[in-house]
């Protein structure tokens, strides 16, 4: 089972851990596309983690459309740990989509600075 090597993986205990800002940060840092892989709906060991993740991903997709980057660069998929071939399919599918959309427009311009005041959580 092979898939395209341009995928980088961040491990989480459950897709329910994902935060809107982490997704936006990835795009600001230069990612061309991001996808969140959660368990099959109804299979979540933690009951509803993957439902919350889908709601948050949809919210960020809407936001990306509004700000012009395009929600298509972000996607959520549901698959179980045993579905290796499916993960490969997703990786290839997502890479195809990003190639069609072209590199992230954010790459060209210099990035605005970002400071965060107050205690660091």
């Amino acid at each position, binding site marked *: 089972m*092979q898939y395209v090597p341009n995928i980088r993986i961040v491990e*989480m205990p459950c897709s329910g851990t994902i935060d809107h800002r982490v997704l936006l940060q990835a795009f600001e840092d230069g990612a061309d596309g991001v996808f969140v892989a959660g368990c099959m709906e109804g299979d979540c060991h933690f009951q509803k*983690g993957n439902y919350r993740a889908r709601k948050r991903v949809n919210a960020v997709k809407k936001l990306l459309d509004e700000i012009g980057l395009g929600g298509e660069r972000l996607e959520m998929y549901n698959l179980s740990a045993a579905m290796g071939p499916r993960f490969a399919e997703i990786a290839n599918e997502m890479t195809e989509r990003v190639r069609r959309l072209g590199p992230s427009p954010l790459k060209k311009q210099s990035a605005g600075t970002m400071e965060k005041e107050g205690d660091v*959580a």
Partner: protein
Amino acid sequence: MSAEKTGSVLVVGAGIAGIQASLDLAESGYYVYLVEGSPAIGGTMPMLDKTFPTNDCSMCILSPKLVECGRHLNIKTYTCADVVDVQGEPGNFTVTIRQRPRYVDVDKCKGCGECAEACPIDVPSEFDQGIGERKAIYKPYAQAFPNAYVIDKENCIECGACEEACQAGAIDHSMEEETIELKVGAVVLCPGFEKFDASKLAYYGYGRYPNVLTSLEFERILSASGPFQGHLVRPYDKKEPRRIAWIQCVGSRNCRVEHGYCSSVCCMYAIKEAVIAREHSKEPLEITIFYMDMRTYGKGFEKYYERARNEQGVRFIRSRTYEISEVEDESKNLRIRYAQEDGSICEEEFDLVVLSIGLEPSSSIKELGRKLGLTMNEYGFAEPAPLTGVGTNKPGIFVAGAFSGPKDIPETVMQASAAAGASASLLAEARGTLVKEKEFPPEKDVSGQPPRIGVFVCHCGVNIGGVVKVPEVVEMAKNLPNVVYAGEYLYACSQDSQAAMKQIIEEYDLNRVVVASCSPRTHKPLFQETVREAGLNRALFEMANIRDQCSWVHMHEPEKATEKAKDLVKMVVAKAALLEPIPQVSAGVTKVALVIGGGVSGMTSALSLADLGYRVHLVEKEQQLGGVARRIKQGLKGEDIPSFLSDLIARVTTHPNIQVHVGTEVQAVAGYVGNFVTTLTDGQEVQHGVAIIAIGGEEYKPTEYLYGESDRVFTQLELEEALAGGDPRIENARTFVLIQCVGSREPQRPYCSRVCCAKSVKLALKLKEKNPAVNVFVLYRDIRTYGFLEDYYLEARRKGVVFIRYDSANKPLVEKGDSALKVTVTDHVLGVPVVIDADVIGLASAIVAPESNRQLSQLFKVPLNEDGFFLEAHMKLRPVDFTSEGIFMAGLAHGPKNLEENIAQAKAAAGRASTILGKDQLESHGVVAVVQQDKCAACLTCVRLCPYNAPKIRNYAAEIEPLLCQGCGTCAGECPNKAITLQGYKDRMQMAMSRALFREV
């Protein structure tokens, strides 16, 4: 028992029953010897694709238990081993085991598979039911434990190719058979079942027609790890089937081949396979199931059947087909000739026929069973002694799983926990004597130190090194920020690499460790143990998976794979810098149990726990104990229930460890697992560590069939009481009509009450026994006398009880006749109405959840399912636990079941509860969420979201109970003011990883 008892237990068979029993025993403080005949633990479950009724992927829900059982300090697993002899008495058995040679050293073998690559021999794989293939040196299945290969000497040609290929030097052809002697206190027999050989019924053509498969073969075809990677094709010509037929009762309910019993599980697994097949096939799939009675009696099963029939287009035909014949053309499709219920004949063609084969007793254990003097029933199963659930005629020897009778996974798991509980009760005084505790050096305090990270990159033989240029990755890692050491290892997980790692942590004074190797799911606990042994907190460790997520999947692009490996290491090192030690929160355990409900289930749980030496508070709403069992006179096998009940009540009321509170209910509940405080309505405040909810069920008061309008219409319990009491209405009645499914399997109560079919058959037999001249009619929708209950159904038919089937759309009509009640129902064979003047009508009224379920669910904050019964944590593998820890359930509160099954579940609940009471300290398992109180706006988001009730608002801010938190991070992701962070997976860490990825080093 003269000699002192041994605090260990022998578990024979490592299927899901053996694994569950071993885990429960080891967690309750008993050392376990787990003996498995095949080269890997797991039994039949790993072969399944999905499991009913939840459609969970079988491996996904099993593998955590496999890893936990395999790595457990107090469980010693012997694979390729059989028990040859057991001598001695309960508490002191001497067991002789014969372990066949594996020809591979389990400790050295890393399961990398190079040997199999080199092996020239291909043979049909037993795991894949002969459809797929395996080499002479093989691992039974990918997630097998032990994760090691085995050589099948029959097919091995001793060419030595594997020995050359193995870089770990694990292969040793000179291994011999060993005989081992063990001292144990109790024995749990759970060797599982064997599948019925379908070729014995020649008319189905199994073995002759390539398109006739067994259900287990079909599971492998459906399974993603199967020979076709889950792509639904026919093994014969690899074509996608359009029309599939399932045939039920193959080797079950068949007196001609001495398999008169019902195998209990085939109806459900047939529907599941049909539904999953539909999901797998891209084109529309026509599915037909040929059956006699659809026996979906378990919890959630009826809804599963209704959904399959009404929404998923599965066609159910009530007919036992005569024979299968093959069409002439090379498609070798199959033709089935069958009769509809009205007698009309149909002939249909199918691309594939799946035979729902039944379960047989495991032949491997017959010899041992005979030697032990175990009484087997006529079919060769070790049916438990009546009213014990798990006992046998030999004290100290218990049975669990399909070996004691065909049953599904939830009941197998229940029986396994019950057997563990029963063994634990037997060896109560020897608890904890043989179990080892792991000693660790004191933890170094690294707070305030700048991060000093060590990076250990693994070759995993050629699995990583063959694709990724490991030295380049190490070189790159050396000049990453905060990295003070980077090195490469042939096998990072081998004993010698572990020792080297500890030494380097010392030498370089590392306070963070990163290992770049394989999947954290299987190896993170192993490395964390080593890091902890080197004095570092387990949380100061992180892994980068450069094998499963890199070298294995980019084999043909080594440069890109190396590039990716570097990136993955860069990201994990960035995260490692932010890791903080997580204190191991632990809390004491009050060694007291609260059991709510004084019926048979409650009392059995209370007694099991009391025998284990724990104090028990038994709370009963009524003025006296006994529950609904008080209204039952005789068990199915004629057991005298009233005397069993009075003996049970006597043992409960006189047991020194049990305090009984009658006429009392639970008023308020506070605290969490190990530290509950419950106030009762009698004012008493009970400190306890666990709670078991066993408040039973109630009999539905029918509104149908003139119940309440005629004194000749009884419910089953009323009829049993009247019969036993010699009520004149029964004495001189000539014609009885028993009507099934009254209130059950209806839109308002879409579930099966499970016990009424067997109870009606029992009542019919009693009436005939009292006076053979009476006429007894049973009007049913499906007769669900599963397992060995089928024999009673056969006996009733032979004794002249007439069974007439009705449809829910054409229910029997009961009208007031002049002297008797006029019952009209259409005979399902002759299609003509039958008019019966019934002197007495017995209604099989449903079992419903009592209203008090709702209050208790609020008090303990545990969920109910839509039918009002309590919802367990996981239908298949945690059937007696709730999601929130420390609370268990048993009996009718979980759902309708008969007395035997209630007793088994009660002992299971006690067994599970003792895994907590057996501990002095309860530890939270590291990854938990923490609230920064000053940032919390008490907005209740986390309280509403958490399925485990871990967050609670205490003095204006949220607080997460570490022992309840399962570490899923859902609350952290949703907290509006980012006051909650998940230890080890903070947002900043994930952002640091993404920033490190795109910043050039």
